[in-house]
């Protein structure tokens, strides 16, 4: 369960202040699959960074399972990012001189998972995102954009987080792989009770989520979607 309460983030650029997140409030139940759509520059990435504790809000609060992020000390926020959040960045943000497997193992290393266990789990995750096995040990900077995207998703899943925040996770993928990733995310939310919030331009993906939000000039509104149940009936 994640509660967002009157969240505001302002930036000063010159003598102008911009508010990419302006009084945003919503709730997501555990296991929900939700999407945020909106034009470029509307504040989607900024909102995700606040939910993922990468950044601190100017005002307002994010409450995760009853715990407020606003009052959490930095050390606890690090733990929160490591244990509870899986972040998929718009630009992947993998470590370029490490292999795919090493990148996926990194969050597990920080969580103190034993080496043998994390190597095995990293291999499984890379299989799940359909990265060719012979590319598992390849350095990131020798993988294509789509392959990096999949490694980034595998890394986000590494510590079995309760909440996955994904910024354009299918943006660099071909239609077929994109479909597969959407399947993977919805399986996670359904079978593992993982809350998933994706920012996307991908209509197919947005239509497969339980809830859809639109961000416009920092303001969030919810749009009605066909539920997975109705989609299946009419499908």
């Amino acid at each position, binding site marked *: 369960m994640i509660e967002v309460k009157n969240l505001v983030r302002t930036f000063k650029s010159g003598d102008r202040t911009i508010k990419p997140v302006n009084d945003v409030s919503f709730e997501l139940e555990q296991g929900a699959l939700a999407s945020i759509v909106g034009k470029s520059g509307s504040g989607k990435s900024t909102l995700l960074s606040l939910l993922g504790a*990468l950044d601190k809000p100017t005002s307002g609060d994010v409450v995760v399972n009853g715990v407020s992020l606003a009052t959490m000390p930095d*050390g606890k926020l*690090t733990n929160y*990012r*490591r244990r509870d959040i899986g972040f998929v960045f718009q630009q992947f*943000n993998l*470590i370029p*001189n490490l292999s795919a497997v090493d990148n996926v193992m990194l969050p597990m290393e920080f969580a103190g998972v034993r080496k043998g266990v994390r190597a095995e789990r990293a291999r499984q995750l890379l299989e799940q995102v359909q990265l060719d096995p012979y590319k598992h040990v390849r350095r990131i900077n020798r993988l294509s954009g789509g392959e990096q995207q999949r490694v980034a998703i595998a890394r986000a899943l590494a510590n079995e987080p309760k909440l996955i925040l994904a910024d354009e996770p299918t943006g660099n993928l071909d239609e077929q792989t994109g479909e597969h990733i959407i399947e993977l995310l919805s399986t996670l939310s359904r079978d593992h009770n993982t809350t998933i919030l994706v920012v996307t331009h991908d209509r197919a993906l947005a239509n497969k989520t339980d809830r859809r939000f639109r961000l416009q000039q920092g303001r969030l509104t919810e749009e009605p979607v066909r539920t997975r149940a109705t989609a299946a009936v009419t499908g």
Partner: protein
Amino acid sequence: MSVLARSVGNAFRNKVRTAAVVAVLAVAIGLALAMLVANQAVTGKVAELNASVGTVLTVNPAGGQGFEGGGEPLTSAQAATAAAVPNVSSVVGTKALRLRNAAEIAAEAAAGQTGRTGQGGPGGQSATSVTTSLTAAVDAGTLGNRNQATSGTAGSTSGTTGSTTAAAPAFSLPITATGIDAEMDSTGKALQLTQGTGLGNYTAASTGALLGTTLATKNGLSVGSTFTIQDQTFTVQGLFDSGTAFGNNALYVTLPTAQTLAALPDELSTMIVTVNSMENVDAAKTALQAALGADKADVTQGQRNLETAVSSLDSVKNISFIAFVAALGTAGLIILLIMVMLVRERRREIGVLKAIGAPNRTIGLQFVLEALVLVALGSVVGAAVASLASGGIASALISSSSTTSAATAQRGGPGGFPGGPGGPLGGASQLLTSVTASASPGVIAAGIAAVFGVAIIGALVPALLTARIRPIEVLRGE
């Protein structure tokens, strides 16, 4: 993948830059190590010089120096007075005897030199002539013959005319027997025993003797052999090597034994006074002269030239230490700057690590380890450079400063110090050049430990900077 493996990987991320950084570090570290090695070598030498000859004063009876002879002999009471002078750490009394065997005495008698008393012998030391069964190991040579002849003349004025016409026979030098009350040679240096033991208690009468190696060889003696002085039987208890042929044509007995042989109990030929440190030598010399009385005793600093040597070595020591510290600081600064640069360059990557939950200490550790990898490589190359260069650097440092002290040593000249058997006169330059800067593993290890210490400090600052980078950096440029 561990933190260490990541650090090693990161250290080689940009191979060209890594090579450049390692090369620069190697120069700084190599210089630091070379300076440390030079410093250690010189420090060791200074300590050695100070410990042995640099702090020694010689007390002779007044007027006993040069060729004048005369004056009142020194006594044990004066030794006690000398020992009470501030900064004097030890006083060793000696009683010198000139040993001649029957054949030589007969030769002298034939040459009409029987009037000799032995007082005012070569160099003016107050030595007493006694007989022995030993034969000297060295021939007199030109100087020796001249000395023998003139002192014979001085010793017996009545024989002068008688001896002038006689062709001067080739004398062998008398053997110097010295009674000592500590295991030291007559210049204040510890005796280097090559065989056997010392004499034990040097302040008690004993029939033991320590012989110079060449004297023992000449007479076919070894440890346990016996010989006589004044018809008294002595046993060889040890052999010593003074390093010079003349110095080895000598023997040592305990002080009371020598005094008894000379039938002059309580009388001393010289006192070897050791001062506690180089800085106090001048003050102690003045105080000693005052305490003993200028009319009774002459206090000389036998190793005056070495003082210059030591002070020039001291400046080499200081220069090399400053250079060591400076090179060490440079190495630290290089690491600091490189790591600051790397942290700035990898800002975004540090943001990524934080965004996926890396604790600050893990990231800081990763950067410190990366710095240490660079330093380790620099140290390996630097140590190699240092071991090749340190000998050259040390001798370059020393030869430039020893030119002056060698000149000083020359000025000491042949005017001479009393009695010193071929002494370390003029040896200052040899002592200086004998400073061999060998890169001992211990010193290199200590130097590398210092380098790593400085590197950790240098890397800690940028590592702490990483803690201030916020995870949101990951979105920079998105």
